[in-house]
C-alpha cells in the first residue's frame, strides 16, 4: 500500500537527523553572520581588516597546501610500492597503515610532542651526537605542525591510493609492456594518468582535513601558530565572540565546499573510466 513511499519512509529517520541537527544549525550559523545590525557583510569586513586574522587564514592555507603536496607525493610513491608488493607483504603493509589511521588524532599528534619537545628525543639525539649544545625549539613552529599533519594524513593517502592502483587492471599494464613500453614509460604513460583522479580525491581529503584541523595545530602550534580551527575555538570559548566564530565557521565551510566541488569536478573530467 505504501510501497511508493517505502524508500522515503525507511530513510526518514536518518534524513530527519541530518536535516534538523546538521543542515539547519550549520545554515543558521552561516546566516547569523549576514543579519548583524552592523551590516550584512560587517563580520567579514571585520575579519579581513584584522591583520592578525588575515595572517591566520593565510597560514592555514599555506600549512594545508604544503601538507597536501607532501602527503600526496609521499603517499603515492608508498602506495605504488605497497600495490606492487607480493601478497603477504602487501597485507602486512596495509595493516601497518590502517593501525595509525585507527589510532586517534590526539594520540598521533601527542607523539610528536615527545619527539620535538625541548627535552624531546630529537633534541636529546642532536645533543648526544654533539651536533648542538643547546636544544632547538622545534615545537610551536609551522614546521612542527606540518610534520604532524603529514604524519596524520599519509596513512589515509596510502590506503586511498593503494585502492586506486589496484583498480588498474594487470592486463592493461601488461599490454603496455607487450607494446614495448619500459617500466618507466608504463608508469608515466599508463599508471600515473590512471591514478590522477584518485590523487585528486585524496588531495581533497587531506586539504580539507588540514584546513579545518584543531587538535594537531593546538598541540604542536599553540598560540604562536594559530590556524582557523584554533582561532575559531579561541573566539568562541575564550572571547565568547560568537559572531566572529561564526564568521570563521562560514569561511571554513565556503573554502571546504569550494575545494570539494572544484576538485571532484576536475577528477570527474579526468576520469576516463567514468565514460
Amino acid at each position: 500500500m505504501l510501497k511508493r513511499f517505502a524508500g522515503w519512509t525507511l530513510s526518514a529517520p536518518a534524513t530527519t537527523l541530518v536535516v534538523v541537527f546538521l543542515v539547519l544549525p550549520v545554515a543558521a550559523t552561516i546566516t547569523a553572520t549576514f543579519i548583524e545590525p552592523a551590516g550584512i557583510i560587517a563580520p567579514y569586513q571585520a575579519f579581513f581588516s584584522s591583520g592578525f586574522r588575515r595572517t591566520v587564514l593565510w597560514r592555514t592555507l599555506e600549512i594545508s597546501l604544503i601538507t597536501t603536496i607532501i602527503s600526496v607525493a609521499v603517499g603515492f610513491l608508498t602506495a605504488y610500492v605497497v600495490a606492487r608488493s607480493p601478497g603477504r607483504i602487501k597485507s602486512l603493509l596495509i595493516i601497518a597503515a590502517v593501525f595509525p589511521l585507527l589510532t586517534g588524532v590526539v594520540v598521533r599528534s601527542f607523539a610528536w610532542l615527545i619527539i620535538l619537545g625541548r627535552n624531546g628525543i630529537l633534541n636529546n639525539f642532536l645533543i648526544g651526537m654533539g651536533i648542538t649544545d643547546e636544544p632547538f625549539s622545534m615545537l610551536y613552529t609551522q614546521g612542527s605542525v606540518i610534520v604532524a599533519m603529514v604524519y596524520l594524513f599519509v596513512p589515509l593517502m596510502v590506503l586511498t591510493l593503494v585502492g586506486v592502483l589496484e583498480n588498474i587492471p594487470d592486463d592493461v599494464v601488461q599490454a603496455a609492456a607487450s607494446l614495448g613500453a619500459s617500466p618507466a614509460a608504463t608508469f608515466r604513460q599508463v599508471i600515473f594518468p590512471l591514478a590522477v583522479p584518485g590523487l585528486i580525491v585524496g588531495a581533497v581529503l587531506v586539504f580539507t582535513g588540514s584546513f579545518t584541523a584543531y587538535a594537531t595545530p593546538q598541540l604542536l602550534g599553540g598560540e604562536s601558530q594559530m590556524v582557523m580551527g584554533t582561532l575559531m575555538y579561541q573566539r568562541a570559548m575564550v572571547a565568547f565572540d560568537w559572531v566572529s566564530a561564526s564568521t570563521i565557521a562560514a569561511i571554513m565551510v565556503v573554502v571546504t565546499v569550494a575545494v570539494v566541488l572544484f576538485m571532484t569536478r576536475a577528477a570527474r573530467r579526468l576520469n576516463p573510466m567514468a565514460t
Partner: protein
Amino acid sequence: MPNRLHPALIGFAVLVYLFLMGPLVIVFGAALSDTTFLTFPPQGLTLRWFERIFEIGAFRRTIVTSVEIAFLATALALLIGIPAAYALNRYRIQLPAWLSTLFVLPILVPEIVLGFSLLRLVAVGQSAPIFLTLLIGHTLIVLPYCVRVISASLASFDFSIEEAAISLGSRPIKTFFTIVLPNVRSGVIAAFILAFITSINDVSVSLFLTGPGISTLPIQILAHVEQFFDPVIASVSVLLMLLTVAVMAIVERTLGLTFLAK
C-alpha cells in the same frame, strides 16, 4: 614478475613506514618510563602510569563518558543508518540522487563547524542537555560510515533472493532480518567498528560540546597536556592504541584482515 620495483623506491617506502610506526613505538616506550617527565627511551620500567590514569577522577569520568557516547551513538546510527542504506539500494529509482549526498554531509561539513553550530543552536538555543547534544553530534559524524559501508555491502546483494523468500511466504519485515541482514553481516560489523573508533577518537565535534562535569577522553587528554607533561598521557595513549589493536583483532577474527585493505 619481470617488472621489479626500483630499490630506491623500496628504500623510500621503508623510511615512510619507519616514520609511520616510530612515533607510536615512542609513545609506548614513554608510557613505561619510571620518570615524572616524558622521555624516550624509557628510563627504568614501570606500570605505575597506567595505575595513575585511574587515580585521576577526570580520566575515570571521561573514559566512561567516551565509551557510553561511542556505544550509544554507534547503536543509534546503525538503527537509522541500516534502513536508510537499505532504502538507497532497494528503492534507488524512487529516491533522488541528493539523498545519498545528504548522508555524506557530516563528513563534508567541517566537524568543528558542526560542533560549534550544535552548541549555538541546540545546547544553548534549545537548552538541550549537553550529554544529549554530544550524543547527537557523535551520531551525526558516525552516520556516514554506517550508511556507506552497509550500502557498499548491499550493492553486491542480489535482491531477487529477498523476492524469492517473500514468494515462498516470508513476511517482508521477517525477510529483512532472516535474509537481508545476515548477508550484509560483515558490512554491519565493519560499520560498527569504524563508527565506534571514530566516536572514541573524536575531538572536533566534542570540543564545543563538553562542559563542567561532562567531557570526553580526547578532550581531557588535550586539557591535561596543557598543564602537565607527564607519562600519564603516554599511558592513556597506549590504552587507546590497545583499543585499536583489539578492534583490528576483532576485524581479523570476524572478517579477515584483508577486509581492512578495502
